[in-house]
């Protein structure tokens, strides 16, 4: 190392991020909130739907789709919502509440790396959820693979961006882990209703569906479903998700406190 480099700001070695990721991955395994709610429950629901024979009947009201085919995108949205609103803020708020962020802020580690590691871990979980749901749906229950893969991936990424931004906003404003849970619940259940978990969008009255498509998970399911059927997702749904991503990222940025 040159003398000049020694005199320059002592940012932590790159390897620190790898170590941080490894620790966060261990914690995700040891406290498997994200694994259970974001991954295991949706997969179980998928298997339950898959096992119901009537879920594989083509329904005229669903535009000729089966209930099962309609639910795969809904369960993907469920995973993203759970990971984004419960798992992601929980870790960050707990770290702040316990003083872990405070301790870290006396080291050369930039606090933003902690945030980045949390986002990365939950993104990987969401990606697993996507792959497992699609693969199990196709391989075990004969669902059709997404007919517009590019549109499907784009819809997935925008859904993650919108919901993770909301999760970071929860992490920014919640003062305790229990407050974060309450906020997450207050957001998640209405959003997953509009996504169609209890009542697919196709069954909703037109007015309700229109409102739903302005919500991030409603738009997400709309985009994922049309990509599954081979259409590029409607611009409206992509714009809705992008707007949520930008607005909540800004809100989170402005209100985030490390202590």
């Amino acid at each position: 190392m040159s003398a000049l480099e020694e005199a320059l700001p002592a940012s932590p070695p790159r390897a620190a991020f790898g170590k941080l990721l490894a620790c966060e991955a261990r914690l995700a395994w040891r406290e498997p909130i994200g694994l259970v709610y974001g991954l295991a429950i949706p997969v179980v629901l998928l298997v339950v739907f898959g096992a119901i024979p009537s879920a594989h009947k083509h329904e005229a009201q669903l535009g000729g789709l089966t209930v099962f085919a309609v639910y795969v995108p809904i369960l993907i949205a469920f995973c993203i919502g759970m990971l984004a609103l419960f798992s992601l803020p929980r870790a960050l708020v707990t770290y702040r509440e316990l003083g872990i962020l405070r301790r870290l802020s006396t080291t050369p580690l930039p606090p933003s790396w902690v945030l980045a590691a949390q986002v990365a871990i939950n993104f990987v979980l969401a990606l697993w959820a996507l792959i497992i749901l699609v693969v199990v749906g196709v391989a075990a229950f004969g669902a059709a693979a997404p007919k517009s893969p590019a549109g499907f991936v784009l819809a997935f990424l925008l859904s993650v961006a919108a919901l993770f931004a909301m999760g970071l906003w929860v992490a920014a404003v919640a003062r305790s882990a229990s407050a974060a849970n309450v906020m997450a619940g207050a957001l998640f259940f209405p959003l997953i209703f509009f996504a169609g978990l209890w009542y697919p969008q196709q069954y909703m009255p037109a007015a309700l569906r229109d409102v739903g498509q302005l919500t991030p998970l409603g738009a997400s399911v709309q985009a994922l479903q049309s990509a599954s059927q081979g259409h590029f997702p409607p611009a409206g749904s992509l714009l809705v998700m992008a707007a949520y991503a930008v607005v909540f990222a800004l809100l989170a940025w402005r209100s985030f406190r490390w202590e």
Partner: protein
Amino acid sequence: MDRQASTKESGTATDAKAGGEAGPALVVEHLRKTYPGTVAVDDVSFTVAEGEIFGILGPNGAGKTTTVECVIGLRTPDSGTIRIMAFDPRVDRAQVHAIVGAQLQTSALQPKLRVAEILDLYRSFYRDPADVGELLDALGLREKRSAYYKSLSGGQKQRLSLALALVGRPKIAVLDEMTTGLDPQARRDTWDLIESVRDRGVTVVLVTHYMDEAERLCDRVALVDEGRIVALDTPTALAEQAGGGKRVRFVPSQPFGDRLLTELPEVTSLERRGHHVLVNGTGDLVNTVILTLAGAGVTANEVDVQSATLEDAFVKLTGRHLHEGDEVTAG
């Protein structure tokens, strides 16, 4: 262990200073920090030389923690300047955090990470870190290396916290109440460790409300009360400032009148606590007291002699005890 105890006298501070003509490790000038309703730190100034163990001693709420939190950049002072090796903790955060190892009072670690994992993680934040194995041994944590943080006892958490303050091989270690919650043996081991760390040239800023800790470890001590430094000197000089007095404590074999002793020129005051008698004075106090008592047919039992301490200095300077109601045993 005994070998370690003698290093303080054998001039390690001068050795460390002889190493280079670098400036002071830490300069604090006119530091002031208020919270709504209170002035936590009021015009505090001090300078810590490289290789020094500098103590900040005072009762709870005196502003010790606020001072060091400003020093390590966790809090923004209302006014005043702080320079750590010429860096400003508010401007040069990265440099300051790379050369300062901090142990905080109010901080925790991930409950479900193991001791070795935490050390390995924190080690990765620094360019030239210490050896994890050595630290585990020095702090008696080797057999706990695979334990979850949440399963550690208070003392073990405290020792891990100290290990994390040292794992980056800091130039300055800022330790806030490092031995709180440790058992006596662990405290002595920790003191030995701090001395060996200083012997390697590390500057130590030690916040404590333990007198024995400050007397044993510190080259200089700032006595802090109500946000101000009331005195700053070596522990010995501070104790001498308090009058250089001595104190004899004993249990008399039979009752005697106070005046028997208070009329002696060597005796300045007499105090009775339960069946103990405490006599403060100067000169050849011990012999005079015992001989006078013997002359009156009184035997002094359980005789305990103390020289003036930092506690006395503190009481003299502030009119208050360092920790009211707290048992203080001089080391």
